[in-house]
């Protein structure tokens, strides 16, 4: 049997204004993208292939599901026009649908099921026709049954329509509440109502109350209370003394100090009340992100002076090695000056810096790299206050065109060295953002200096490794 998943832009029109940039099929429900539940269901019902069909863009879905090898099935994609009816959809996928039995889901619907009831024999024996129907979607079967036998009524599954933020919230709460859960949820779990992801740090005095689901790279600070009924996504910080209950925090959300998140959905700097559908964007980000936008690049004057002093120190330290090594490498053609444009603290305000590349395996280039001479020119930008000496790994302008950097990475502050380098975290925008954000809020000038030295030493060390 094969499955056809048909979803139209009109089915999820309500979701786009609330979660800009999120495709509904990859919208997380209890930290698991919506489409995965449908895929799980298709597999349990006996499908060997799934085709996802839409009149809207599918590239985000494709990026997540790829060809389905992760689930051991074939996943393919197809486009339809806005006013194609279900017959037209089947016509357009005639070759895919030609092998007999098909299961077709239509609309933005969630199919809930119980693992203990056997789904596969039921679907194999059920006659063709609509199995489940709601006002905005349906589940139907076409073709002759694969097996003969008595069909046990009612169907061991039911349909949940996702037509508003309220229904999305209710569904998530229900799944969190279900025990024993028929759905496989991401994260480590030794109890049915508690799932914890990788790299979750709970400070002393923080409290986690079940049921709860927590994603990867999450920090729960001192005195914070998470749960009951909390779904925390990945790359999230819940800062000191804040409480999160009956709520969902989507990926990349920062909850500042001393806040109460009760019965809400938070996504970046957006806070939604699922009961009324009211959504507010925090224009002053620090209500949610707990930080102020002071100074020219997000630092106070005092901290700026400190940064300038540290960069001056490094300039003096590296001046002679730079004078000796840079011209030599330039002659060898291994040193190339590159002008790079980085996103500034504020959206649309870019910072232009010189950041050369040093190529080659030789002793000289190795030495130059380990002394961070490629960052030498940037130190002058730090001296003049255009970048910080330590902060975020700079994001190249144009990397995140669709979403504002400040939403993706609250506390972003381009710098010569990054906190991730100091803490020896993998340096890429997604994984390092959490440690960068932590220091952006809790860092102090002295700590900045220590971390700058640490980052510098780590880079030397990195070159020593075979």
């Amino acid at each position, binding site marked *: 049997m094969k499955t056809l998943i048909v979803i139209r832009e009109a089915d999820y029109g309500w979701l786009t204004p609330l979660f800009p940039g999120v495709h509904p099929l990859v919208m997380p429900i209890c930290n698991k993208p919506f489409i995965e539940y449908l895929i799980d269901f298709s597999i349990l019902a006996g499908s060997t292939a799934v085709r996802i069909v839409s009149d809207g863009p599918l*590239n985000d879905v494709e990026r997540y599901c790829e060809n389905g*090898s992760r689930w051991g099935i074939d996943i393919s994609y197809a486009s339809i026009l806005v006013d194609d009816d279900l017959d037209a959809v089947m016509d357009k996928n005639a070759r895919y649908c030609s092998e007999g039995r098909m299961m077709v889901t239509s609309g933005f619907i969630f199919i809930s099921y119980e693992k203990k009831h056997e789904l596969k024999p039921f679907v194999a024996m059920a006659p063709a026709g609509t199995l489940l129907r709601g006002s905005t979607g349906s589940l139907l079967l076409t073709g002759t049954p694969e097996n003969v036998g008595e069909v046990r009524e009612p169907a061991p599954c039911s349909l949940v329509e996702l037509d508003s933020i309220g229904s999305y919230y209710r569904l998530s709460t229900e799944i969190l509440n279900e025990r024993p859960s028929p759905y496989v949820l991401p994260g480590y779990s030794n109890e049915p109502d508690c799932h914890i992801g990788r790299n979750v740090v709970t400070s002393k005095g923080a409290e986690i109350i079940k049921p709860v689901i927590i994603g990867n790279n999450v920090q729960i600070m001192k005195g914070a209370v998470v749960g009951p009924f909390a779904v925390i996504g990945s790359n999230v910080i819940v800062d000191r003394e804040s409480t999160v209950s009956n709520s969902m925090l989507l990926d990349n959300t920062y909850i500042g100090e001393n806040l109460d998140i009760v019965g809400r959905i938070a996504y970046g700097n957006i806070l939604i009340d699922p009961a009324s559908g009211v959504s507010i964007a925090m224009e002053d980000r620090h209500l949610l992100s707990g930080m102020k936008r002071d100074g020219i690049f997000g630092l106070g004057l005092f901290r700026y002076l400190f940064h300038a002093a540290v960069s001056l120190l490094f300039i003096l330290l590296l001046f002679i090695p730079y004078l000796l090594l840079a011209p030599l490498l330039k002659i060898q053609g291994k040193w*190339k000056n590159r002008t790079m*444009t980085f996103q500034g603290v504020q959206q649309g305000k870019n910072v232009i810096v010189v950041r050369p*590349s040093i190529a080659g395996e030789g002793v000289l280039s190795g030495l130059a790299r380990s002394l961070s001479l490629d960052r030498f020119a940037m130190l002058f930008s730090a001296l003049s206050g255009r970048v910080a000496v330590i902060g975020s790994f700079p994001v*190249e302008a*144009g*990397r995140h065109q669709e979403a504002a950097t400040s939403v993706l990475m609250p506390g972003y502050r381009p710098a010569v060295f990054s906190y991730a380098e100091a803490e*020896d975290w993998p340096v890429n925008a997604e994984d390092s953002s959490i440690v960068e954000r932590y220091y952006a809020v809790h860092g102090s000038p002295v700590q900045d200096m220590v971390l700058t030295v640490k980052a510098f030493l780590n880079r030397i060390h990195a070159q020593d*490794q075979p």
Partner: protein
Amino acid sequence: MQQERQRKNNYPMNTFMTMSLPSDIHYARIASKTAMMVAEFFSGQSGIAEKREEFCHAFELAVAEAFANSVFNAAPQEKERQVMISFSSEKSELMVSVSDANPEFDPEMQVPDILSYPEHGYGLVLIRQLMDSVRYSRQDGMNQLSMIKNAG
């Protein structure tokens, strides 16, 4: 962490290939096929398996678009002009830059509304969607379009 360090060392910033082709659309296939093979070579080295095909196609198509853009941007009497394509890498990122001495162009061009049947103007839209980072610069009478994609 050990792994991360090793990866850093195996792939230092490296310009490994530069080619120069006549500014003629019939050479576009040479440019794009080469880009695809470079991407195949690079992704094989950096050991990505799952998204390799997508990664290579992205380079094939982006270079085809950049090359065509370059050729169509040249004045017709400038046939003897050259288009320079160079490939470099840093860690798990592959970068290709396409440069020429043609007139300046607007890299921010938006695709017109599809429902009005536009026959041109998709090129830069495709490039921006396929690549992680796209940068345009104009220096000393040269256009340079640099495109980066992460293989990881």
